[in-house]
């Protein structure tokens, strides 16, 4: 039994499919440098013992990570990270953050409230994500 490096959590209200949440959390961990190449992801059993979710969800998430080229499954051993998403820290994305700040200022000036800004962002984010998925098909 290897050392448990990361733990997952499920946001039941987020509207995002559970397996995608796990994929996202692995990507996040890779981005933040919590996981690097060669690290073992928690076993399905370990994950569900901590987070009461369906084992198939975890399996599906790991398969998706494999599909994205981020992990590989070694039968009988476990699932291991194959590449990191770069050591890039948030600092590298400072320009993006700056653009975001400017846009937020514009939105507030236009009279949008906080929930309004969030709604506008979520809808647009979701629409573009779905459009990207459609484009990929």
């Amino acid at each position, binding site marked *: 039994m290897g050392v448990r490096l990361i733990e997952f959590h*499920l946001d*039941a209200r987020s*509207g995002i*499919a*559970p397996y995608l949440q796990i994929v996202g959390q692995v990507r996040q961990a890779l981005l933040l440098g919590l996981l690097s190449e060669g690290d073992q992801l928690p076993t*399905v*059993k370990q994950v*569900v*013992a*901590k*987070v*009461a*979710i*369906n*084992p*198939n*969800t*975890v399996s599906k998430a790991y398969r998706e990570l494999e599909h994205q080229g981020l992990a590989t499954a070694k039968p009988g051993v476990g699932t291991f990270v194959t590449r990191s998403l770069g050591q890039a820290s948030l600092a590298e994305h400072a320009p993006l953050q700056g653009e975001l700040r400017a846009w937020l200022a514009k939105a507030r000036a236009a009279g949008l409230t906080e929930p309004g800004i969030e709604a506008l962002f979520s809808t647009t984010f979701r629409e573009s994500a779905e459009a990207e998925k459609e484009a990929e098909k």
Partner: protein
Amino acid sequence: MSAILHAQALGKRYGRRQALAECTLQIPPGHVVGLVGPNGAGKTTLLKIACGMLAPTAGEIEVLGEQPAADPAQLARVGYVAQDTPTYPGLSVADHLKLGAKMNPRWDAKLAQARIEQLDLYPKQKAGKLSGGQRAQLALTVAVAKRPELLILDEPVASLDPLARRSFLRHLMESVAENNTSVILSSHLVSDLERVCDYLIVLVSSRVQLAGETEDLLAQHHRIVCTRRKETDLPSGLEVIRAEQTDRQSTFIVRGESEIPAGDWSAEHLDLEDLVLTYMERAADPGHRGTTHPTGDAR
């Protein structure tokens, strides 16, 4: 692999009361199945028939390819924990494990012992002195340690506090992951189930209203909100499950195989709770006869 549960027009009648009617199901293996429905819908009846506690009065059922409780070998393949997770109050935790060991050929003593330790249960403690959550965990341990292929749990977390509930589900999922067990568990609350279930059966008024893989069901259903219009004005190929009309607005819950094309409506997916509620409301409607309402050109 064949279905873990195959029911054909299954029915159970008590005198004049029809507890279960026209129940047809084909549940694939390798899933955690959530059986959800209001109290008195027939969930307990269905589960009792599945584990051989009750005999049906109509239709047929096969569990793991055999008649329920046909013989000791079939009994060994199915684990059952009844509502209120009964245990023998006068017997200790260790006695319960011994019960399991003596009465089941495939008993896994190591697994049972490990779980008891994991749960911090004292072997000598009488089951009557345990808390509700601990009793539920004990009953689950006894059911799991006999290494069944299918676990049937009747409202296992209904009377547990949130902490005990989460703990129970965690241990259950751990068993499923370890042994590849199929599970059928019932609840009258969707929130209990949505974390863990990947197959859903909605049972209302003694009838199966909906059954299928959770993901598929969620993908197939949409809520369409638009200006007031008739069902026939919707895109074709959709089955209208429920319709609500105000003076200005129509809201339709529809089911279809394909994505909703863009139009002067907003279409979004439902969450699991809303989906189940929709079917429950539909079943409670006196006018409902279970017929479909095809939309558009499909008429």
